């Protein structure tokens, strides 16, 4: 009993002292003299610009800085313009506002939006090509669902059809294809990471884009490793089926992030979804199907499992485009892209270390495996050219 009290006391004492220190700090403000002399640090992020109709623009604004910011004026293309704000002009830390500007924007031309704070500090964002923001309705959702199915689900399922071919391969060649899978996944991981860094730039400062990214990547790796370890201790060993599902999940998370970006870019008029782009996505994603089935080539998974894996990997594209189209958030996109990167890295690692090694080979990197890995990277690079 005494021991319990002791333990709790020592466990809580540091927290208590920290609380006392913070209270004193807030009460007496020993650093107040610095605050008076240093200029206010202000930060506003325009994280979404939409053109809901002719002659109207909407800016979504987040205060990601440490100080409240007062929006004094709104400048469009170097001209002060009238506008309305859905709340007080002073935006508190982490506060959000939508600013509506009746402005005769010109389709197909760039526009620059600048917020001038009461302190004279400015915050700008440019739209490279203005286009009407599609209305989010049944037709929009249907079109995006179709896009998701074309670009995400069908290709993955087609990729899965390599299954019978892979099943009949010798161990050596199967390893070649597993290495190729690792190559595909590594490419996706790098691709996702770069994209995540790009989106992280738009994350309001307080939400720390890069920190969020690290959290997502490491979080996904740790979660999948912990789940794998738990299963291994209960089972006899790592199951290939589980590995395949994990690959599907990783790719699914990646596709969710990608879908968010596609939906948002499209509604923001930053992306023209030509059929060429959809073909590019489809070719790209077909290889993802191959990545999923390679580890289970030795097993006899039911068709149901294959379909389920296809859905896990591909359907998030649909969900992503929907969410991205409705309300884009750089925070969510960064997080999902990062989770995808982490998940993909984890499965690439697992295939590389456990599956390849367990195939009674003494060395991990045989010339054939190296060729497979290189080819995997090359295939992804080649198909990605169509998406540029």
């Amino acid at each position, binding site marked *: 009993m005494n021991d319990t009290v002791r333990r709790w006391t020592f466990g809580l004492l540091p927290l208590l002292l920290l609380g006392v220190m913070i209270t004193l700090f807030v009460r007496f403000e020993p650093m107040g003299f610095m605050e008076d002399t240093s200029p206010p640090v202000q930060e506003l992020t325009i994280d979404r610009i939409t053109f809901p109709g002719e*002659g109207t623009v909407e800016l979504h604004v987040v205060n990601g800085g440490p100080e409240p910011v007062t929006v004094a004026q709104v400048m469009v293309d*170097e001209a002060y313009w009238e506008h309305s704000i859905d709340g007080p002009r002073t935006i508190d830390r982490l506060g959000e506002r939508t600013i509506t500007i009746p402005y005769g924007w010109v389709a197909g031309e760039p526009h620059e939006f600048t917020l001038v704070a009461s302190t004279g500090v400015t915050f700008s964002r440019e739209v490279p090509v203005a286009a009407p923001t599609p209305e989010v309705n049944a037709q929009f959702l249907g079109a995006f669902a179709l896009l998701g199915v074309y670009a995400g689900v069908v290709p993955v399922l087609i990729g899965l059809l390599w299954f019978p071919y892979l099943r009949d391969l010798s161990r050596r060649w199967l390893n070649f294809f597993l290495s190729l899978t690792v190559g595909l996944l590594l490419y996706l991981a790098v691709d996702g990471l770069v994209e995540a860094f790009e989106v992280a730039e738009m994350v309001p400062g307080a939400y720390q884009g890069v920190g969020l990214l690290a959290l997502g990547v490491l979080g996904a790796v740790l979660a999948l490793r912990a789940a794998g370890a738990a299963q291994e201790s209960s089972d006899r060993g790592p199951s290939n089926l589980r590995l395949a599902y994990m690959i599907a999940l990783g790719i699914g998370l990646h596709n969710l992030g990608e879908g968010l970006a596609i939906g948002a870019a499209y509604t923001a008029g930053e992306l023209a979804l030509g059929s060429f782009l959809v073909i590019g996505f489809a070719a790209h994603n077909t290889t993802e199907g191959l990545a999923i089935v390679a580890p289970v080539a030795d097993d006899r998974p039911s068709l149901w499992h294959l379909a389920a894996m296809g859905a896990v990997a591909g359907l998030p594209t649909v969900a992503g485009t929907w969410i991205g189209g409705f309300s884009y958030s750089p925070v969510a996109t960064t997080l999902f892209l990062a989770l995808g990167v982490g998940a993909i890295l984890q499965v690439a690692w697992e295939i590389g270390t456990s599956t390849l090694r367990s195939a009674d080979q003494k060395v991990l990197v045989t010339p054939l495996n190296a060729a497979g890995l290189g080819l995997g990277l090359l295939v992804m690079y080649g198909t990605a050219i169509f998406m540029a």
Partner: protein
Amino acid sequence: MDPEPMSRRDWLKLGATGVAGLSGAAVLRMAGRSEAADAMEAAGVGQDAGYGGADTVDAGLAEDRARATPPSEVPTQADVRHSLEGTSQARMGVYEGGKPGDGFDPRQYLTEFDGGEVVQEGETTVHEYDFVALDREIEVAPGVWFPAWTYNGRVPGPTIRVPEGDVIRVNFQNAGSHPHTIHFHGIHAPEMDGVFPVVDPGEKFVYEFEARPAGLHMYHCHAVPLKRHIHKGLYGTFIVDPPGGREPAREMVMLMNGFDTNFDADNEVYAVNTAAFFYQSNPITVGVGDPIRVYLLNLTEFDFVNSFHLHAAMFDVYRTGTKPEPDEFTDTILMCQGERHILEFELENPGLHMFHAHQSEFAELGWMGFFDAVPELAADEGVPVYRYG
């Protein structure tokens, strides 16, 4: 919990809260974009501008607006743009309390000529002035505050006006945080030129020289870095009247200036007499057919040139105001940094006459205004008639 004394930031916040109320007005505006009457209300043009003749302003602009809006139900791109133009900047120019929150009154500045304290010292007439350099926050556009360096707490500084040949004595005290001077344009001894000595904070210096030649001049700080000392607000108008003065006219000072509020060497705000859009939401009242004289100066930094364009009328240009004959008859005059001219004109027709920089960017960033020409305006109403002596 919050025993914090009033900080600079809080003060800024107070100044800016007023603007919050404007957002509501914008919603109303959007509901009836083509309603000219609404537009005028939102623009605040109907408010008593201190010049009188507000009713005429209302009706005049409403008529203009009605003509500008086509009867078609569906506005074209051009219509949208046009209908917004008449209203948006006007709304943006509405100052809480009717004028900049720092107390500076652009209406007053326009016609305020300071002859100083006149002292007779033997044969010589001396005009004595007290100038103090002060750091001060000023409101340069509705809601936007700028950390200025000022003469006597205002930007531009007082308009010095003396007859040619009289002596000017300026007791300058630097109560600012940086070294400053006052450099006068005109003809005088180099030691009174305001380049040397540089007056450090807490120090004093007396500038004394004969005012010549007759014309329109200026003064500004000449401490380095020059660009910063000038664009922060240390400048003003210096008028030397020719013997016997000029013909009576409705006289006013328009000093074109700009403010780089985010200090990126590019102006965010342009104006005449500091307050962006002020004379647009508070038109300047003048009499139809009366002689009008504008003392026009360019103290803009960062942009090489600025300009003045008058609508629906033409003006005589007296370059630097040094010669009795006009140099040019035009409606647009281009001026380099530091150039200044006297403009003389009449407005033949009643109603609103726009004036602005013909650099559209400057105009839409605040350098825009209206003359409101009113028939049979008394000499002391609106911009009063200035009589020499």
